[in-house]
């Protein structure tokens, strides 16, 4: 079958799509801006806020400690904390964020320690409040090092070496290359985003080319031309597929640029002063991204054909929207399910559309290629996609659908 007429239809639909502001926004602007705004913007904002919280010198209240002058003195000398005098309403002050934490030194603390008797220092904080957690963390760190000093003094008093308490050291070391670590962290996300954007990219043009055509009264015009309905639906299908893939490709491109920017501009380090949240491993391997795309191809075909079929049934834009919106959930649920920890590919899951590809994407991103699964998933998804195209063509031949009123 020559696709000459489908190509003519495709070219015309492309011309129209490129002149439609709504299509341009949904297929080009949104995917290009989504990631920079989401990742860099949001990430930078979060790290700036965290950095600010770290830089602030939190106020903490010292409760008791009148008979423990050494500890109290050391506490006051800390430059990361501002120790304020005790008041009776310290709890309310923590709640109202006037102070961030409080530390309670029991009466006779230093005397008890000197006599090797058990003693307890309590740190009060407001859980869930990040600035309070920082203050409490600093207090705890200080108290631990103070305790270590006490231990050292005791060992020294008994003439024992310091390493008696540490017979050996434990060290954790990573052997995975950085892109694999990045892949594990991002694998689920990339697959999910590609699938989701394949869908959102297809949705608008699918409605515009079917229900939109009915609504604008051009359906009868085009049906009166000699182009066969099969060629007509194929031309439309290829346009929807183009939009779907363009959306996904642009979003992955912008995701790559965003990660690159985050690594190179060191947004996190700048804000967090070399804090431990710096994502050094946000690297994606190009091969893995291409593989994900290859697997997304039949998914995009499936979406394009299914959405054309569904929205062709609708009489108007509004009706088409109300049919396609619930489809978002049908797509999101398996895609999100694949991100759950512990879910892995099994032969049964490999034939469930969407879920199979999102699970596979997770594997591909960490550089694992299960060829059996890849073949099974590609074939089964292609099969579904083929069925969806067949359905779309059949739908275009039904008068009751084309002239539904």
């Amino acid at each position, binding site marked *: 079958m020559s696709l000459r007429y489908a190509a003519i239809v495709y070219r*015309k639909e492309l011309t129209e799509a490129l002149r439609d502001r709504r299509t341009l926004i949904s297929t080009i602007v949104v995917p290009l801006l989504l990631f920079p705004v989401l990742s860099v913007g949001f990430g930078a904002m979060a790290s700036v806020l965290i950095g600010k919280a770290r830089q602030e010198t939190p106020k903490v209240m010292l409760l008791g400690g009148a008979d423990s002058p050494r500890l109290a003195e050391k506490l006051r000398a800390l430059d990361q904390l501002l120790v304020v005098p005790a008041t009776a309403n310290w709890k309310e002050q923590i709640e109202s964020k006037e102070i961030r934490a409080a530390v309670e030194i029991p009466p006779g603390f230093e005397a008890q320690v000197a006599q090797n008797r058990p003693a307890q220092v309590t740190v009060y904080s407001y859980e869930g409040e990040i600035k309070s957690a920082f203050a409490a963390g600093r207090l705890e760190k200080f108290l631990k090092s103070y305790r270590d000093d006490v231990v050292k003094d005791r060992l020294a008093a008994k003439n024992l070496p310091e390493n008696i308490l540490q017979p050996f050291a434990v060290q954790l070391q990573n052997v995975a290359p950085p892109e694999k670590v990045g892949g594990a962290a991002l694998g689920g996300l990339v697959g999910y985003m590609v699938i989701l954007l394949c869908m959102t990219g297809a949705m608008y043009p699918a409605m515009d080319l079917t229900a939109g055509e009915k609504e604008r*009264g051009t359906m009868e015009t085009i049906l*009166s031309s000699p182009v066969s309905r099969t060629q007509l639906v194929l031309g439309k299908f290829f346009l929807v597929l183009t939009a779907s893939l363009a959306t996904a490709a642009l979003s992955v491109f912008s995701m790559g640029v965003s990660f690159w920017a985050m690594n190179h501009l060191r947004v996190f380090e700048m804000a967090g002063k070399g804090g431990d949240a710096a994502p050094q491993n946000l690297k994606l391997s190009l091969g893995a991204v291409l593989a994900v795309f290859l697997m997304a191809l039949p998914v995009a075909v499936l979406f394009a054909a299914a959405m054309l079929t569904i929205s062709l049934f609708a009489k108007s834009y509004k009706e088409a929207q109300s049919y396609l919106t619930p489809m978002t959930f049908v797509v999101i649920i398996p895609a999100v399910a694949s991100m759950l920890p512990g879910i892995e590919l099994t032969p049964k899951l490999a034939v469930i559309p969407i879920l199979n590809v999102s699970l596979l994407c997770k594997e591909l991103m960490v550089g694992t290629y299960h060829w059996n699964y890849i073949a099974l998933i590609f074939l089964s998804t292609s099969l579904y996609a083929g069925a969806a195209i067949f359905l779309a063509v059949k739908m275009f031949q039904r008068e009751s659908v084309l002239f539904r009123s």
Partner: protein
Amino acid sequence: MIEARGLCKRFQDKKRGEIRAVENVSFTCRPGRVYGLLGANGAGKTTTLRMLATILEPSDGTATVAGYDIVAHPEKVRASVGFLSTATALYPRLTAQEMVEYFGRLNGLDEATLRRRVAEIFARLEMDGFRERRCDKLSTGMKQKVSIARTLVHDPPVMIFDEPTLGLDVMTARTIIAFIRECRDRGKTVIFSTHVMSEVEKLCDTIGIIHDGKLLAEGTLAELRAQHAEQDLEEIFVRVVGPHHTGAGEN
């Protein structure tokens, strides 16, 4: 040439069951003549014309249009037909020229022929002033011209007009009427549907009165006048339709 033989169209409606939109309709339209299908709203005019244009498939019966059977060769029929109705809108985001070119290409014209035809038609219909303007920015009159150009681009021997003047102002309607005459004068076979008596009187060589999906009377205006001993077409129409009319408030 159009020859309709026993055309039937039945629809299934969930509430009302089977609807017989067109029942056993047969007629002949000859080249160089205008056949007018006269009927009230819902009489079956649009369905009949859509079947001739192969937009709908007949449930029974068939027709030949420009020598091609509408059931066996629908694509060849469409390539021989220019179809215009008030429901055939333009693509809003294409320019006037792109719109006409698109339909030329769909009709299989090669690029050289297409360029020549488009230049010819745009000159004849005086459309060069808005050639590059998008269809959604055109006035109603300009849109009608683009629609006419669209139906003419492949120079079809048969023209089908489905209530082409419905909802148009007088001046735009006159453009259409003049265009229909021109088609006839150029030897094309023309069929058009309307419920406006004056248009039929002005234009049609043969008149078919359709009601409830059935063709009840056919003939030239003179023949119908003689048969019913009545000069006024509206009176003739009421007499023909009257006994079959099922609507309330009339006899």
